[in-house]
């Protein structure tokens, strides 16, 4: 492969004083400030509703609204009797590029279902939120629609979810509309 040498651009005198860049930065900041200030004031009086100024969410008390398509924390869907829909076919475990899923299968008492997970462990610390597990699932048993994004924990161990937590995802704040 040919080597291409790119010369670094020499700074001119004005560049070396850093003043032009300083003023251009100040210009951007104040543009945002005055635009927001102006738009929010207008909105306060019920004017110019089509314009929107930026605003702050009081996270974590208030959750930021997410798109319905956003891939958020996983959950396992349930049958009518509360049992997991999962049949432990291990498709998600096989497709998972982060290798964060570990399923152990067991016999289902219902011979028409045959198989169910004895344990379903998911390590959020390893998950890359690619959503392959949801795509590959033949039973619609795993979904990533809980709208829970935070996985803050004091240790990696606490980021591991077992089947109980995956079936009842309640650990984070409920989404406020």
């Amino acid at each position: 492969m040919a080597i291409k040498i790119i010369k670094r651009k020499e700074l001119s005198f004005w560049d070396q004083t850093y003043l032009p860049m300083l003023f251009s930065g100040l210009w951007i900041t104040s543009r945002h400030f005055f635009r927001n200030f102006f738009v929010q004031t207008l909105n306060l009086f019920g004017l110019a509703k089509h314009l929107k100024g930026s605003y702050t969410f009081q996270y974590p008390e208030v959750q930021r609204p997410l798109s319905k398509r956003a891939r958020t924390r996983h959950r396992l869907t349930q049958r009518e009797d509360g049992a997991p829909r999962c049949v432990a076919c291990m498709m998600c475990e096989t497709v998972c590029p982060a290798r964060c899923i570990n399923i152990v299968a067991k016999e289902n008492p219902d011979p028409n279902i045959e198989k169910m997970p004895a344990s379903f462990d998911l390590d959020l610390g390893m998950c890359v939120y690619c959503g392959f597990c949801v795509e590959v699932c033949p039973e619609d048993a795993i979904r990533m629609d809980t709208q829970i994004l935070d996985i803050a924990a004091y240790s990696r161990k606490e980021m591991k979810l077992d089947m109980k937590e995956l079936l009842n995802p309640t650990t984070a704040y409920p989404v406020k509309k």
Partner: protein
Amino acid sequence: MANIVIDGKSFTVKDGITIIEAIDQVKSELPRYCYHPGLSIAGNCRICQVEVDKMPGTVIACNTRVAEGMVIHTQSEKAKDSQKVVLEFLLANHPLDCPVCDQAGECKLQDYYMEYGVYDSHFDETKVKKTKKGVSVGPTIMLDQERCILCSRCVRFGDEITKTHDFGIFGRGDRAKIDIYPGKELDNKYSGNVADICPVGALTDKDFRFKMRVWYLGKQESVCPGCSRGCNISVEFEKSRPYHLKNDRVMRLKPRENKDVNQWWMCDEGRYAYKSIDQNRIKAIKASRMNPQWKDTLEEVAGILKKASLSAWGLIASPQNTNEELYLTKRLFLDTLKWKQAAFKAPGQDGFEDNFLIKKDKNPNTLGAEKILNLGANEDMTAIVEKAKRGELEGLFIFNHDLAKIFGAETLKVIRQKVKTIIYQGTNLNPTAEIADIVLPAVTYAEKDGTFTNFEGRVQRIRKAVEPFAGTLPDWDILLNLAGLLGLTLKYLRPEHIFDDLAKENSAFKEMNYKKLGNTGLIWSQ
């Protein structure tokens, strides 16, 4: 001999064989369900359709004999169309439960659908449901009638190989189903084979049920150590998910084709004996000092052996060890240390034998031990044990044998009181290992390379499937290190090199090497 043409290439094959046999001989591809080289021809699955010039329509390859000048097409449009149509009929009543089916991943229906089918279903009717789903038909096998495609391989296996006549096809038309005869149970010494020959998930193995998806498995060709037959097997182990390994690494054993030894089969006893590879193993060295390491333990052993007098020590070698290890045992103990008392044969340990595969000698390498150690009449260990009981022995070096099982716990107790030093080298925990002064943890046949000699003198390779546990070493490695400490310098890097020397020295193994042994082994030249 007949000259035939398969897919444009000409071959000369034996007269009177079937087209499918010819196709297999020239290593061409053709789908099949009911055809199995070890069973009679049924011709009822109809998938092996081929087109033969000057014959109307297509014919099934498994029940058409080759003739001089036959021109066979397996890939022509007509042949492929026939195969596809047959596959669609076979799948008409097949449930879509691949996610819960243990066969998924090694299922011929899945494979052939992707290879020969890939059609849009024309089937508008409701599928005929069979009654039995996930029903136990014996101690080892589960039956699922829905998944069955009525190839009748299991019926023929029971009729022709085991002669137990377990399975039958009941009902007619699309209500026909495979079942076990009323009041019967599939409980014979070879029942596990029906799960192997079932091309779909109708008969599955209970032991393997839901344990693993087959695509995670790695395979290694090996030889069953369960008896002196030396059935060719493949050791199937957890390969793709080492990060999820809990306890068991080896998941199952499957028979491997070797027409001269076990054909396509293996017995249940050998099939389910793999658990000793992972369970109840000796993983830690036991020696006089606390927290012993390999180096200082072997030095301690070498120190003891150096001081030992020739006549006061007894060696009990093991026919569970490979030829290479027995050769090193001989070089070290018999040639260098010149011990007078050595034996390997355990008395009264004969088990079940039949006239098919199972042999009464439950050791894989008795013949190898006989030939290599060359002990003649002294090979029985009773004399040594009697001496030990009388207190005439100072020490014992035991490979793998459990004296409590052979001579009873009382005898072991007496031996422990009378014999000063007992060194044990073996793989699994047992009473003898518990009472030994020094325990050297060795590895099982799935964790090392080597060769076994079966009852007819066939030398066959075993291969390393999984890594040894931390803290354990292969017997040959332990013996090599020990030999080095005792002044016998042997420059072997692998068992292969040991075998080369063995072949040079021992006339039975003359002109053999690992490359020549290959996958099926070689018989002693005598």
